[in-house]
C-alpha cells in the first residue's frame, strides 16, 4: 500500500509507523511479538567494507583463466576424520520442525551437489536428511530433543550449540501449531503444545565442564568426528578463547543478523552484536592463542553474496554459513505466492512469520499440503545454483586481489567506508590509515 506524504505530514523519528503499529498491537493483544528471520534494523555490515583490487602494487589473476581454489578443511585439530568441503559456504543448522521435510531434503540436495555440508537443528536428525546430505553436521543442543548415540555415530561432525545470533542467551521455541505427530514423536512431547527448548545445557555449566563434555562426545565417537562449538555473538572474544581452551575443533560464531524460526522481536533486535565486530573479535582471540587456521572459524549472520563471503574470509574466517539466504534460494518470500502473502497480511519480501506454520512457500511449515508445494529436487537445484554464484563471486574478488585461493584473502585487502565499520572490523577507513580505537585489542 503506498501512502502519499504531503507537506506538513511529519513522521516522528522516534515514533515511526512501525513503532506506532507495535504499540497498538501490544495494547491489543497483551503479548510480545514473536517472529522468524533475523535483525531487520540497519547495522554496520560487510556492505561497509570494500576490496582494494590489485593495480600497480599488487598483481591480479586472470579472471577466466587462472585457478582460484575454494576448498576448505574443517576439524584438523583433533578429529581423525576432518570435514573436507569444496566451497567455503555451509548450510546453517535449521530444525525439522521449524522447516518442512521437503525443505530439509532440498537443503541436503543443494549442499551435496556443491560439495558442502548441511546441519541438523533442534529436534534431531531425520533419515531423509541424512540420506540427502553427503556431509551432515549433527547439532548437540540444550534440549537434546531426539539426541541419540546412533545419530552421533552416523554424523560427519558434531556441533555443540551454546547459542545463536538471533538470541544469545535464549532458548528456542516451536509453537504448538507446528508440532505435528512426527515432530512430537521425535521430541518426546505431546502434540500441539508450545514447545520450549532450554537455553542452557542440562549437564554442564561453564568452560571447564565443556572440556569434559567434549571429551565425552569424542570418546563416544572414538575421536573420529570434528567437534564444533557454536556461539551467538555477544562476548565473542572471550567465548572464542574459552571454546578453544575447552578443546573445540571448529568455532561457529553467529552474528545478530542470523535468522531464527521463532523468537521474540525484542530479542532479535536488541540482544547480541553484529556479525562484523563478532568476526573480528573471534579472529583476534584465535590469533592471540596461536590457533588461527588451526582451529577453524565459521561465521554466519547476514551472509548474502559472494562479496560477503570474500570479506568474511579476508577478515579471517575459514568458512561462512548461511540460513536465511538458503531459504530464500529455496523459494521463501517468492513473488509467486504474493496473493497468499497478502491474505496473511504481509507481502513477498516481508514475510517473517516462520513461527506460524502457514508459509505459502511450504518451507517453514508442518502442514502437509503446504509442504508439498516445495519440490525438493527443484529447490535443491536452486540452492546449488545460488551456492555456485556465491563461490564464483568470491573467486572473482579473490582473483582481483591476486589470490590463488580464497583463503589467501587478508584484512590488508579491505578498506572501510564508515567510521563505525572501521572501528568494529579494525579495518582502516578508506583512503586513510585510521582505525578508530586502535588496531589491536578487543
Amino acid at each position, binding site marked *: 500500500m503506498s501512502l502519499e506524504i504531503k507537506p506538513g505530514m511529519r513522521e516522528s523519528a522516534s515514533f515511526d509507523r512501525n513503532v506506532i503499529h507495535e504499540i497498538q498491537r501490544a495494547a491489543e493483544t497483551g503479548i510480545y511479538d514473536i517472529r522468524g528471520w533475523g535483525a531487520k534494523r540497519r547495522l554496520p555490515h560487510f556492505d561497509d567494507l570494500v576490496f582494494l583490487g590489485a593495480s600497480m602494487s599488487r598483481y591480479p589473476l586472470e579472471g577466466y583463466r587462472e585457478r582460484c581454489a575454494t576448498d576448505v578443511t574443517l576439524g584438523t585439530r583433533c578429529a581423525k576424520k576432518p570435514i573436507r568441503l569444496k566451497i567455503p559456504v555451509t548450510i546453517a543448522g535449521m530444525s525439522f520442525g521449524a522447516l518442512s521435510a521437503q525443505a530439509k531434503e532440498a537443503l541436503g540436495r543443494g549442499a551435496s551437489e556443491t560439495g558442502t555440508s548441511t546441519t541438523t537443528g533442534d529436534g534431531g536428525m531425520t533419515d531423509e536428511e541424512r540420506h540427502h546430505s553427503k556431509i551432515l553436521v549433527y547439532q548437540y543442543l540444550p534440549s*537434546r530433543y531426539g539426541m541419540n548415540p546412533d545419530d552421533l555415530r552416523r554424523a560427519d561432525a558434531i556441533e555443540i550449540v551454546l547459542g545463536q545470533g538471533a538470541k544469545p542467551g535464549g532458548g528456542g521455541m516451536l509453537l504448538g501449531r507446528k508440532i505435528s505427530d512426527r515432530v512430537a514423536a521425535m521430541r518426546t512431547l*505431546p502434540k500441539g*503444545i508450545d514447545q*520450549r527448548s532450554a537455553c542452557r545445557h*542440562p*549437564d554442564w555449566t561453564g568452560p571447564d565442564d565443556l572440556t569434559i563434555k567434549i571429551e565425552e562426545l569424542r*570418546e*563416544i565417537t*572414538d575421536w573420529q568426528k570434528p567437534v564444533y562449538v557454536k556461539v551467538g555473538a555477544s562476548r565473542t572474544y572471550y567465548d572464542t578463547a574459552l571454546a578453544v581452551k575447552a578443546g573445540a575443533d571448529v568455532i561457529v560464531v553467529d552474528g545478530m543478523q542470523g535468522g531464527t524460526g521463532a523468537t521474540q522481536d525484542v530479542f532479535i533486535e536488541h540482544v547480541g552484536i553484529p556479525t562484523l565486530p563478532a568476526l573480528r573479535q573471534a579472529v583476534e582471540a584465535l590469533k592471540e592463542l596461536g590457533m588461527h587456521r588451526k582451529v577453524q572459524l565459521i561465521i554466519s549472520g547476514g551472509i548474502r553474496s559472494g562479496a560477503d563471503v570474500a570479506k568474511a574470509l579476508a577478515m579471517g574466517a575459514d568458512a561462512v554459513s548461511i540460513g536465511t539466504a538458503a531459504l530464500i534460494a529455496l523459494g521463501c518470500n517468492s513473488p509467486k505466492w504474493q496473493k497468499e502473502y497478502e491474505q496473511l497480511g504481509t507481502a513477498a519480501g516481508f514475510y517473517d512469520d516462520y513461527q506460524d506454520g502457514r508459509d505459502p512457500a511450504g518451507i517453514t511449515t508442518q502442514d502437509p499440503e503446504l509442504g508439498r508445494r516445495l519440490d525438493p529436487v527443484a529447490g535443491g537445484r536452486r540452492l546449488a545454483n545460488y551456492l555456485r554464484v556465491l563461490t564464483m563471486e568470491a573467486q572473482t574478488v579473490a582473483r582481483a586481489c591476486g589470490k590463488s585461493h580464497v583463503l589467501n584473502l587478508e584484512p590488508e585487502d579491505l578498506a572501510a567506508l564508515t567510521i563505525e565499520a572501521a572501528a568494529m572490523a579494525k579495518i582502516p577507513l578508506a583512503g586513510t590509515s585510521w582505525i578508530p580505537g586502535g588496531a589491536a585489542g578487543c
Partner: protein
Amino acid sequence: MNKKTSLVDLSRTSIRELNQALHRLPAGSGSTRWRIREPRGAHAIACGLNSPVRVEIEGHAGYYCAGMNQRATVVIHGNTGVGVAENMMSGLVHVKGNASQSAGATGHGGLLIIDGDASARCGISMKGIDILVQGSVGHASAFMAQAGNLVVGGDAGEALGDSIYEARIFVRGKVKDLGSDCVEKEMRPEHREFLAKLFARAKVRFRPGDFRRYGSARQLYNFHVDHAAKY
C-alpha cells in the same frame, strides 16, 4: 553360562583405550564381563556402550560415566560425578554410592539406580528413562522432564518438577516445594503396580503405598498471557 572377565587397570590403561575396546565388542557380548580397577574419578568411563556387556567399576567415577548407554549394564562401586548415565537409551546403570548433579539427564530409556543420594537436577529433561534414587534428590530435579519415572526414596529439594511435561515423579519423603505447573496427583493402582515391579527388579524394600505421586498440571503447555506471572 561361562562368563569371561576382562580386567582393566585405569592406572595403566587410558580411558580412550578402554572405551574403544568396549565399543569394539560384537553385538552378542552378553557373556562378557569387564572389571575396571583404579578409576580414580576419571571422566567418561564406559560411555557410548552399545552391547549387552556387564561393566563393574571398582571405585569412584567422574563426569558422564556410562553416558549415552545402550544395552550395557554398568555398576559403579562408588560415587559418580556429574551426568552419570546422561542421555541413556537402554540398559542398566547402578551407582552403589551417591551421584552428583544431572544424574540421568535427558535419558531416553533404561534404568538408573542410585543407592545413595543424587544432587541437583536429577532427571533433568528426562525423556523416558526410569530413575530410582534410594536416598534424596537436590533442587530442580525433573526440571522440564518429558517422559519416564523419577522415584525418590528420600526427600526432594526445591522446585521439584518445574515445568514438567509428561514424566511421573514418586517421592516417599518430604518435598521442599514444587516447581511451576507441577502438582500432586492421585496414586492409582497402576502406579502402585509400577512401583512394586520396579522395587522387585531393583531388589529394594520400599512399599509403594508410602509414595506420593507428582506430575504436570498441564496449565502451561500453551503460552497464554494470563499465565505470564508463573513463568
